[in-house]
């Protein structure tokens, strides 16, 4: 064991490199994304379900909608408050949330998720500004 110095130096360098993201970003917090709502979304006040639920579970809801519409031929969703929605990502969700860059992308980029919904579904179907 004559290489003790070499090994320890190597280990230290290794640790510095591996922990680079931690010490480089220390003390800095990336601000959480701030989503902008469209006028239409603001006026509606509430989404299909509560804001908290939509924020964390909208993908589950979309999955359920897709399954119902495509496979079961059921297209109408009645929320707990009795309001009815046509289950359509293109025509219901993206109609109200027609600002993909300021709404969807904000959180998706922050969380580093890349959903491929927009490969097929077209953003802003009615061309609201």
């Amino acid at each position, binding site marked *: 064991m004559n290489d003790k110095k070499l090994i320890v130096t190597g280990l230290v360098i290794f640790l510095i490199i591996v922990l680079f993201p931690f010490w480089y970003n220390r003390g800095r917090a990336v601000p959480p994304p701030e989503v902008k709502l469209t006028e239409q979304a603001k006026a509606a006040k509430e989404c299909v*379900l*509560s804001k908290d*639920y939509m924020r964390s579970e909208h993908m589950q809801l979309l999955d*359920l909608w*897709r399954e*119902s519409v*495509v*496979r*079961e*031929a*059921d*297209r*109408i*969703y*009645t*929320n*707990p408050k009795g309001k009815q929605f*046509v*289950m359509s990502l*293109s*025509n219901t969700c993206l109609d109200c949330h027609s600002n993909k860059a300021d709404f969807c992308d904000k959180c998706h980029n922050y969380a580093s998720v890349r959903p*491929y919904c927009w*490969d*097929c*579904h*077209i953003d*802003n*179907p*009615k*061309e609201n500004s």
Partner: protein
Amino acid sequence: MDTSRRRVLQLLGLSAAALSAPPVFNALAKEAHEPAAAPQIGPSKEALTAKQWAMVIDTPKFKSEKDVEPLVEACHKIHNVPHWDEKRWEIKWLWATHYEHAFTGTVSRRFVAEEVQHRPFLVLCNHCENPPCVRACPTKATFKRPEDGIVMMDFHRCIGCRFCMAACPFGARSFNYRDPRPALKYTNKQFPTRMKGVVEKCSFCVERLAEGKMPACVEASEGKLTFGDLFDEKSKVRELIKTHYTIRRKVNLGTEPAVYYIV
């Protein structure tokens, strides 16, 4: 280590208590998370329904390609079907072909009335009662809808293996060899496009039926096409089949196509 009988019993009791904890926690967590009343899911009220949708095509009314074009246009326009000049990338939902190609193996093609030979025959997915594409699909991306017999595609699930294309005897399915978006002539923003690597075909306009509208080609045909329930004896489709001589494509294969041709 000394372990008394008392200690062992205590531990056992504690473990049993711990085991019962998760369900209690889960129940508590659930109540806080889920919305109070259960949401409801159902069909739309204006939706048109049938046991097996079928189409009757009155072919003598189609004199030339000109009569076919508006129908194809209507279909491809609303469904964002791309138009490629390159033949091998072609995507088709509804198109015209010649008599001898449409009815191979079904009818005598040796000597045919000249008028019939030049008549354009509209072809599309036959929405077979016994669809071979559905059996071939390894992911159940294509399936026969039990409610109304439409052979549908779930583009989300399609992995692009093209088994269905090999299985379909009518060539009704097309594969997106490239991203279809650059090849769109018009974009209907209300309807999704497809992506590269996905198979697509006619859907008998499910999205229009759900809104109580007839398929786009039927609407554009001005009575040359008739759409209705094959299993309803009083439907228009059955009325036409009863009163006219009709043929179907490749019936000898036993797929039971739901598109009937008056010749």
